[in-house]
């Protein structure tokens, strides 16, 4: 059992942040790795990236968007409540090294995952440029934390209610046009965002990493449900990823695979409301 030490609501309560007591995981987890969470005996296993950790206090931070039954149930948990199972760390850590200038692009809840990776890149001695995108001002998360990490930070909102109006790709394009020293782009967010970021950087020949989020069950390579096609080869996201070369990912396939259970998940949610 894992205790929730702190709970914080963000983005009008649609995004929740948990600080959880998990000393063994905190000791091992690296940026980019995730855990599998199952909240109770009838629960589903869902993957969530570790957004931060504190080895000394033995805690990990999970930040999740409420999208379906499990995340809705998780929102109803309070500080001090217990989570049944957390398995991890899982997946490969982000490939972090000192390469010079990197651009970190985050969209929506992706910013939560990006934050941990950005921090690692900063700690490795890189010049970090952050581009965060959100639907509107209220949906923007972790601005403060990202400001502290990034050497430059740009914020875009779809409706222009805060920062630049437009998409992250608009800002990224500007940077790619202006600076030739960008060694790498890291993009984490909705699949469409990662797709368009990768299309853009391909033109500029800038290496790009994306973090994929297929549906997962075990997270240990056992089921193959998380398979993605990268460079025309089948990869299991949970053991080979979740980070992959953005220029080689088959996004269309991933989008389609991720929408497979839509109907059932609605049924599950309805059942829980009843």
């Amino acid at each position: 059992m894992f205790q929730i030490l702190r709970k914080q609501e963000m983005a009008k309560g649609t995004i929740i942040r948990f600080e959880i007591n998990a000393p063994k995981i905190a000791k091992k987890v690296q940026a980019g790795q995730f855990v599998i969470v199952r909240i109770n005996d009838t629960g589903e296993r869902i993957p969530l990236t570790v957004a931060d950790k504190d080895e000394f206090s033995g805690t990990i931070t999970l930040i999740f968007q409420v999208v379906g039954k499990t995340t809705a149930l998780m929102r109803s948990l309070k500080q001090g409540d217990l989570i049944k199972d957390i398995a991890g760390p899982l997946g490969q850590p982000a490939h972090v090294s000192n390469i010079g200038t990197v651009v970190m692009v985050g969209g929506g809840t992706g910013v939560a995952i990006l934050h941990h990776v950005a921090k690692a890149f900063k700690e490795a001695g890189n010049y970090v440029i952050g581009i965060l995108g959100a639907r509107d001002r209220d949906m923007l998360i972790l601005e403060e934390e990202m400001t502290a990490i990034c050497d430059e930070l740009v914020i875009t909102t779809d409706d222009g209610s805060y920062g630049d109006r437009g998409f992250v790709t608009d800002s990224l394009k500007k940077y790619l046009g202006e600076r030739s020293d960008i060694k790498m782009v890291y993009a984490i967010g909705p699949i469409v965002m990662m797709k368009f970021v990768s299309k853009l950087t391909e033109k500029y020949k800038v290496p790009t990493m994306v973090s994929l989020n297929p549906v997962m069950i075990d997270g240990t390579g056992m089921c193959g449900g998380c398979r993605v096609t990268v460079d025309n080869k089948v990869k299991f996201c949970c053991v080979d990823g979740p980070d992959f070369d953005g220029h080689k990912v088959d996004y269309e396939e991933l989008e389609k695979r991720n929408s497979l259970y839509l109907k059932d998940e609605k049924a599950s949610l309805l059942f829980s409301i009843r």
Partner: protein
Amino acid sequence: MALLDQDVKYLKFKTYLPCYCPHCKKTFNVEKRDVKYLNFTGVYEGADVDVKISPYLNVFEQESSIPLKEGDLFEDLKCPSCNKSLVNPDIVCGDCGSPVGEVILSAYSRLIPFFSCLKVGCEWHGLTRADERHIKIKIPRQEMPEQDQKLRIQTYQEVPYGYTTELASLEAGRCLQCKNPKCVEGCPVNVDIPGFIKCIREDDFDGAAKVVKEKNVLPAICGRVCPQENQCEEKCILGIKTKPVAIGNLERFVADWERKMDLVKIPIIKTKLNKRIAVVGSGPSGLTVAADMLQYGYSVTMYEAFHEAGGVLVYGIPEFRLPKSIVNFEINYLRELGLRFEMNHVIGKILTIDELLEHFDAVFIGVGAGLPKFMNIPGEALGNVFSANEYLTRMNLMKAYLFPEYDTPKPRGTKVAVIGGGNVAMDCARTAIRTGASDVTIVYRRSRQELPARHEEVRHAEEEGIKFRLLTNPVQYLGTDGNMVKGIECIKMKLGEPDASGRRSPVPIEGSNIVLPVDLVVVAIGNGSNPIIFQTTPNLNRNKWGNIEVNQQTNETSIPYVYAGGDIVTGSATVIEAMGAGRIAANAMHKKLSAKTKKTTNSN
């Protein structure tokens, strides 16, 4: 001698002859007996008589036999072999308390026309061995009663009900008690098969369970899932002339009996060794190592990646074949024996093997073969194309069959195809039919003879209406606009010349392509080895198939004090082989650790 199959089937077996009180002249406990022959010397109404009774069949009838009537009293009856009295003096009349002549006869006496005495040390030679064999061959193999074929596909409850005590006794009676039992050789862990069957014949079911458990710690599970027809039962002498003894069914019976009668006792472990063992993976190989090492007195910690222990037994094999309550019972037993579980621990990630070695004296790796194979043909990424592992994990471990009470969605299809011909494929197909699919087909590239699944599984699958497309292999999956699978293009195969291994490999017949309409596909073509442990344990040697390399005698890996066994060493195999590998490792581990202790104590 005519002992018809149908006669034997309807025999009712009672251990006792009528009880009659000589004092108050009452008869009690008399039921309609199906006793066949009695051929003894006895004292009947004061006089010595040669008792040859045959109320039923006619072999000995010609001889001057005295028919036994209801209420007849035997003052004494002697076993023709050992001459001991068979009358039990402890039985008294319920009304007046006088001793009455109840006769004790042995279990296997009941099914064939002779009796033998139960007294220790008696062996009755009323018939020659050849006669006995001749008679036994005529007794048909007793099948377990099963759920109705039509109704069972609407539930996830176990299909066979198991033997009743009567059926078990009858089946046990078929065993010839060979002096040189071949069946034992066929069993990967050498269970004393004639030994436990003998106990069943003597109604000592508890004793039978003990004999089995000397070699097999999970008999209730093995009795259900072992491929007996390729192991013990394949070797049974009876199999030459007729069907072999149903060893698996009997094994299951005694284990179930012990559990249901609450006879399982947690042994007290006398020696406590100050040594610690880590077991990685809670499948059958790991459970065996844990059980053995606990018995030796080690303290054992088991690390499991999932939230539930049991390995394939919980996430793979479905409820209707292996009820999870049985697996949980065995796991609780080990817990009470002192096993510590650490769930949600993916070794290689949260702790590496090297880190385990810092805290433990030895480590056993039994992580199974967990990396599903795909065929790498077009369309495998389509929706509703699952690996068997995913399909079964969703359904079993995550209990999607109870969706939406449980949160994991249930994969659904009306026309389902399962690729492969092993137990895993049968399990997927039989699960699919239970989710309400109207049409489930097994697509297998070889012929019926080569189907690697247990015979019982194939039979059950057929009874449940599952179709078989043999000598057929998928070449691609076809999808709808919404990217869901809608068909499989297959090619017909024929069996080619036998290859070096003697197996005839299938070759495609050009131009024979067909399309099967389907809306759900499960790919059950096996597993490769999971990379997680290797990624952080570079000095762990692998063989050419990518599995862990071990010393065959000890199951020790290239890292001293690290042992391995089960599917991660052999590739996908069987429950009992995984258990056998666990036992070898446990023995070797104990030997090596004991030797080490001696050395250190000597040098001190």
